[in-house]
């Protein structure tokens, strides 16, 4: 059997989703963003939502999400994506509206917008990338930075007496009556990727069904910001991030 015999259309088991374009991603090796972008493209395609989806991009590394997923996008000011999404969805409830936000964007400067959009039960999906650091500005402390974790603004490690506690904002959002689905996932193994994909599908489905606000946190790696190799970063995330941010569904009020 030659390679030509194997590379035939009927043997194809996997393909790049058509919505994920050919642009070279600017993300670092080992970064979780690329995987989550691909999952969003796959889910939109499989659900037939490409013409209904409107994404709200954040400030941070994923500010350029619109360069990779070929749907309509609005790039929001830092932290304001849930407010932008609120208006987009209310002005046309037939659209599937989601925000894509990092931990600095959602859990620091945008806490107010995130909490209030969720409390109003806006029918939006929030994809929340938590890698415990500000990636784009060069590795500063985030609200989700772990105790003792070194960043460029906590060079001797995060100290609670100086910087407060790591903020598990997703847990906070389960307390709001407006959230229908809150889950915490990761994309460090094939099995985890499949679970995250199912979570994104559920969140997008909730947006279309008008069930309320869905939050999909993806505990992620930032190999460059953490100053590790991609393999080290995955291992460090499993050993440290998952202890503070354990994976699994935190809330689901929607009948499957």
């Amino acid at each position, binding site marked *: 059997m030659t390679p030509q015999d194997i590379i035939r259309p009927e043997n194809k088991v996997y393909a790049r989703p058509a919505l994920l374009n050919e642009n070279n991603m600017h993300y670092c090796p080992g970064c979780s963003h690329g995987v989550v972008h691909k999952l969003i493209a796959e889910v939109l395609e499989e659900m037939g939502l490409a013409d*209904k989806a409107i994404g709200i991009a954040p400030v941070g590394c994923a500010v350029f999400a619109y360069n990779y997923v070929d*749907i309509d*996008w609005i790039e929001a*000011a830092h932290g304001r994506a849930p*407010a932008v999404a609120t208006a987009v969805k209310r002005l046309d409830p037939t659209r599937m509206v989601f925000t894509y936000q990092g931990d600095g964007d959602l859990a620091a400067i945008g806490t107010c917008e995130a909490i209030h959009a969720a409390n109003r039960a806006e029918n939006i999906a929030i994809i929340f990338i938590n890698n415990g650091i500000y990636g784009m500005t060069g590795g500063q402390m985030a609200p989700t930075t772990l105790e003792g974790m070194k960043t460029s603004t906590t060079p001797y490690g995060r100290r609670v007496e100086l910087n407060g506690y790591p903020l598990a904002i997703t847990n906070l959002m389960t307390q709001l009556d407006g959230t229908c689905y809150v889950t915490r996932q990761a994309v460090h193994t094939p099995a985890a990727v499949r679970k995250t994909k199912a979570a994104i599908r559920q969140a997008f489905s909730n947006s279309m069904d008008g069930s309320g606000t869905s939050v999909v946190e993806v505990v992620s790696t930032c190999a460059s910001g953490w100053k590790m190799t991609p393999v080290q970063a995955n291992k460090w995330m499993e050993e440290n991030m998952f202890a503070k941010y354990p994976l699994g569904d935190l809330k689901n009020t929607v009948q499957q």
Partner: protein
Amino acid sequence: MEEEVRLMKGNEAIAHAAIRYGADGYFGYPITPQSEILETLEAEMPWETTGMVVLQAESEVAAINMVYGGAACGKAVFTSSSSPGISLKQEGISYIAAGELPALIINVMRGGPGLGTIHPSQSDYFQATKGGGHGDYHLIVLAPSTVQEMADFVGLGFDLAFKYRTPAMILADGIVGQMMEKVVLPPARPRRTPEQIAEQCPWAVTGRPATRRPNVITTLELDSAMMEKHNERYQQTYRLIEQNEVRYDEYMTSDAEYLIVAFGSIARICQKSIEDARSRGIKVGLIRPITLWPFPTEAIRQLSRRVKGVMVVELNAGQMIEDVRIAVEGRVPVCHFGRMGGIVPNPQEVLDSFIADFPDSRH
């Protein structure tokens, strides 16, 4: 809804005019002296009739970002606030300008700085006309002096915003917002359909049909050469607006030997001062800028060639006077009379100040 004559506050007139214009959405946050806009919209429940969205946001910051989102979708959306709240909105306004999005922002000014007072002022002239937020941009700024103009400028502001794809501001003061006058409300027209929006705003974020490339509204450009090109495009739009959209009113200027320049509610007080002056043989006329940006520079320049002096009257420490001085180019003396902190002068105070500054005006 047919044309209708009503007695109402300026703030209420804005709410009614927006519904009748076919606005798609309003996003606001309470602050005195403009809360009647949000209250009136909530009481009218336009979502039951025209389908207009009305939402009380969690902050001025959220409200302006809702406007940014709605505008990106090609919808006719607006927000309103008063001075401290407008300061909070400046980041979002800068994004709307950079995104080349149409939107209407209403500032019913109160006295500042800081939390200031709830009483009328015009102390946000600099902020409104020189940019306000970060970056090189302008707003189209309309200054109403009557309740009728509060209503009329809603439609005008939206039309100009969509024509030039740039945010417009109604810069009112607490007097125009709070006083009641007769107002003729225009007949209602329907909101635009999704098809009309797709046709009129091909850039709008609507969900991407298979027939076109993705529409992306972003204000980020890391390539400086590209960012300069964007800036050049913004500036071309501003030059076009300056050519086409200058608006002002003249009152008794044909034989005037002196000129008063004033905008908004204080311009009406100045009309009374001018009538009193003329009864004493002092020939004064008034220019009332209606667009504060673009400013009626040329009209003031022409008049400055045949008057002996100019007085600028404002409810602030002297802001518009800088633009008047640029127009007058030092030909004749330009003086200022202003009250601050929410104090509104009466016609006699204005006239006394005028005579003190121009004692030779009494022949």
